[in-house]
């Protein structure tokens, strides 16, 4: 007989995948239940800590800044209707009512890949019942590039990067997909030539080539891909179709592509929804703006966080029913009419597919958990007249649809159909100005605080986002600054110790912004955090020195402070 009466702690450990981006990093999540220690969390969650999954074939235990702080980003969502907390069943009932009360044309379903393949497929079954496809947010891009889409598939592994002779980078790995860095380090050690095409010089590159966002790759002589080249770029809702088309036109059929994705299961969701007629982000947003859309259901996809335009919060109010099915308390939960709270990602069971096309199982390392997310979707389907879903069956169906290997140490790519002939279409695609409405020739609109300088047109630059896991997930980091070149600092009359005021044509001015001098092209300013003055991927702004001294540094409030 044990003398133990009341153990103070109970610990569960889950083997999961970081939800920060589509890299697919393996991680253990520890959940400590206790009455003994004050959790110090603002959201009443148990104490969470990550542990490093050193056997993961993707990251071997290593994590980026987002992953290291993953435990702090798990504020659980709370089921609610019109802001009032309710039981999950009530939230489900309200969702069903909303769906029954709307025509198919008034409903949109969005799942960008923020959850497992199994939940995505269950969501698709609801879509089938309603006659509404589940959108992944990438349709607009793929429609633009037409048959070239076939070249953006999976199958290039991170190990292929390590053994490549030549690597062309169209992403900033340090910021956007940090776990790529070590793969590039290994490639460089083995003698790879690494060419970075973009605005910022990267230390990992053996050659940095300045390529502005609207430069045609046909005009870049350094871009000479061959059979030994691995091209690393990414597919996001903001990918510029013309650039993507040029990449494929020039390199398709001879080089390997590794397309990174910003959302945990964007690859899996993309493949599962491949043959459905989806709505693009733009379609959904404009239907929301016009009031045509009455019900939007977002499955672990926070449209407000993903959207660079922070007016999206207001746009949500045009919906009769904004419904969020979410494993975390994100921005959209605060404005949704209905929130169906599901178990956190680390407690989910099933699989996700990373950018390589690797199917990664998510399994609780200790103890089973109820699959509230999956069964909430099943309950909605049943209430709409469908049959209840069986997890094992849906899992098997997802694996089969993905044509994937269930062993995370092996990547199986379904046999490739003959690739379509590459026809040049990029010259017919709209250019940057037409794609991003805020993109225009520099104007000398001015910051009220710096009229004198502004009148001379100084400080006019283009603002670009350096997308990263914090930005996509609406999580604040210590990245509240803009980056510009030394020359740009001069022309904006910035001084060390002072801050900058940034203004845009829409009239938004952000005062006292910190800045960093980076080795990068003149005429641009970059930021990693969503900025009020930049509502599109590329925006004209004016950067000028703030007349006042900087404020105290901002303190980032965390939900759950990891050890």
């Amino acid at each position, binding site marked *: *007989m*044990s*003398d*133990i009466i009341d*153990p*103070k*702690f*109970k*610990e*569960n*450990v889950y*083997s999961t995948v970081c939800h920060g981006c589509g890299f697919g990093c393996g991680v*253990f999540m520890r959940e*400590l239940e*206790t009455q*003994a*220690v004050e959790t110090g969390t603002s959201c009443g969650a148990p*104490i969470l*800590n990550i*542990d*490093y*999954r*050193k*056997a*993961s*074939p993707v*990251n*071997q*235990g*290593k*994590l*980026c*800044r987002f*992953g*290291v702080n993953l435990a702090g980003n798990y504020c659980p969502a709370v089921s609610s209707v019109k802001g009032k907390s309710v039981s999950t069943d009530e939230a489900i009932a309200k969702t069903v009512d909303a769906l029954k009360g709307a025509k198919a044309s008034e409903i949109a379903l969005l799942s960008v890949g923020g959850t497992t393949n199994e939940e995505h497929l269950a969501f698709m079954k609801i879509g089938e019942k309603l006659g509404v496809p589940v959108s992944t947010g990438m349709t607009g891009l793929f429609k633009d590039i037409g048959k070239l889409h076939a070249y953006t598939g999976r199958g290039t592994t991170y190990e292929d990067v390590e053994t490549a002779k030549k690597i062309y980078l169209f992403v900033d790995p*340090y910021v956007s997909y*940090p*776990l790529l*860095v*070590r793969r590039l*380090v*290994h490639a460089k050690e083995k003698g790879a030539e690494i060419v970075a095409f973009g605005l910022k010089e990267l*230390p*990992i590159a053996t050659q940095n080539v300045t390529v502005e966002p609207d430069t045609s790759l046909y005009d870049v002589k350094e871009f000479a891909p061959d059979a030994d080249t691995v091209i690393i770029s990414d597919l996001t809702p903001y990918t510029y179709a013309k650039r993507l088309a040029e990449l494929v036109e020039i390199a398709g059929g001879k080089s390997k592509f590794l397309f990174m994705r910003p959302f945990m299961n964007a690859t899996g969701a993309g493949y599962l929804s491949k043959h459905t007629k989806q709505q693009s982000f733009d379609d959904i947003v404009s239907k929301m703006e016009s009031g045509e859309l009455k019900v939007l259901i977002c499955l672990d996809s926070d449209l407000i966080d993903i959207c660079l335009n922070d007016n999206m919060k207001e746009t949500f109010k045009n919906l009769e029913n904004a419904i969020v099915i979410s494993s975390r308390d994100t921005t959209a939960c605060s404005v949704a009419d209905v929130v169906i709270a599901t178990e956190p990602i680390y407690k989910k069971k099933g699989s996700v597919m990373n950018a390589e096309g690797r199917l990664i199982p998510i399994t609780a*390392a*200790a103890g089973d958990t109820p699959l509230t997310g999956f069964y909430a979707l099943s309950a909605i389907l049943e209430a709409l007249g469908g049959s209840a879903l069986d997890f094992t069956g849906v899992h098997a169906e997802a694996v089969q649809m993905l044509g994937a290997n269930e062993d995370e*140490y092996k990547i199986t790519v379904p046999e490739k159909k003959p690739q379509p002939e590459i026809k040049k279409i990029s010259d017919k695609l709209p250019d940057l100005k037409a794609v991003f409405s805020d993109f225009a020739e520099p104007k000398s609109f001015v910051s009220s605080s710096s009229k004198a300088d502004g009148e001379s047109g100084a400080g006019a630059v283009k603002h670009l986002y350096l997308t990263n896991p914090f930005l996509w997930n609406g999580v604040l980091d*210590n*990245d509240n*600054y803009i980056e510009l070149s030394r020359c740009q600092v001069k022309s904006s009359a910035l001084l060390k110790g002072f801050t900058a005021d940034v203004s845009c044509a829409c009239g938004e001015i952000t005062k006292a912004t*910190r*800045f*960093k*001098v980076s080795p990068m092209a003149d005429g641009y300013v970059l930021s990693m955090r969503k900025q009020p003055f930049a509502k599109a991927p590329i925006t004209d702004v004016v950067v000028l020195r703030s007349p006042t001294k900087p404020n105290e540094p901002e303190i980032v409030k965390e939900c759950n*402070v*990891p*050890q």
Partner: protein
Amino acid sequence: MSAPENPAPAGAPPAGKPPEKKPPAPSTVGDVLKGSDIQVGGKYIGWSVRDEVRKEGGSGGLVTSILAGALEKGLVEHVVVLKKSSQYEAVPVLTSDVEDVYASAGSMHMLISNPTKYLRQFQNDATIALAVKPCDMRGIREQQKRNMIDLDKIFTIGLNCGGTMMPYKIRKVTEEVYGVNPDDVRAEEIEKGKLILETTDGEHHAQSIDELEEEDNGRRENCRYCVVKIATNADLACGNWGVMPDYAGKGTFVEVMTEKGAEFLRNAIDGGYAELKVASEPAAEARGKVNSIMLKMSAKTKEEVFVPMQSQTMTDLKKELENCIGCGACRTVCPPCACGTEAKCTAFNDPVDNYDISLFHMIRFLHLMDSCVGCGQCSDVCPADIPLARLYRKFANPMQDELNYVTGMDDRTPPFFEIKLEEVQ
């Protein structure tokens, strides 16, 4: 399966085999001991009284028995066990269920847990028993010196350690070097300087550790130059070094390092969990001999790694650090780091600064000079694969060698704590 037992040293003479042909000396002298016979400083050979634990545990299951006894008799509220999900992967989990202790994983050279930071989350609010490697215990002691871990609340069983391996790497080596399906591996052992994998068909597959390490496929680099192989800094120092053929695979050598260690051992005997006998002189000598061989090998590697680094310039150092992505993982996992959110390395490091070399790292190099335990956790988790452990040791070695200060081995005050401002002035 038993609790984690001691890994045998790479390159060391095999446990239980004497160097000469004369009949091997016995491991023990005298009869089975009573609890009251156990003394601090005593050296014993012990084993579990439970058949199934003896069978499952590679070295007689002594460690499992001590942990189970401590939990069942209420000496501690919790035990940290290893939950094994494959031959290559296990994760430490807290339990109060003795069945979990009996069921926990066996010897795993590829398990590199970080109990120091793990223990911090309990805020000294529970009594916990756990098995540790020497470097784990060094981290725990450094935290204790900084008032973050209360040694009165924990009980530690130190395990001899000849080195650990990275789980993913060894999985790959299994496939590519051994030509064996990694999922077919049932057990692994280090013997006669070879890493031996036993597959489900009963076959043994061996490769020389030296050869594996030439290709960087063996032990983690920091393990190869580690200076503590027997965890004499824990309450009990256990392992199979010194176990002679009569007890090979059936007994564990244990040295009692603290009064608490003696108490837990007495509890295991009196509670009917374990039996012990006094270790013979030749057994103790054999243990010392293995240890000194291991230490000589470490000293050699230390020279090979660090002598060339003496000519490293600031430019070289800058180059080493240029791919840092600022994730902070190295600090998060660092066992002696006790600074929390007030850390100088982060407070003085501003991402908008453009210093030629990261202040974060410069402060940490300085800060770790008197506290780095050489565990290699920083290198393990670095997403840019910066050889951080090597860089920290480059700065720590000269200071720790000069002051003859081995971090985390005793209660000695860290050298930086002893500096008096007036002396500096």
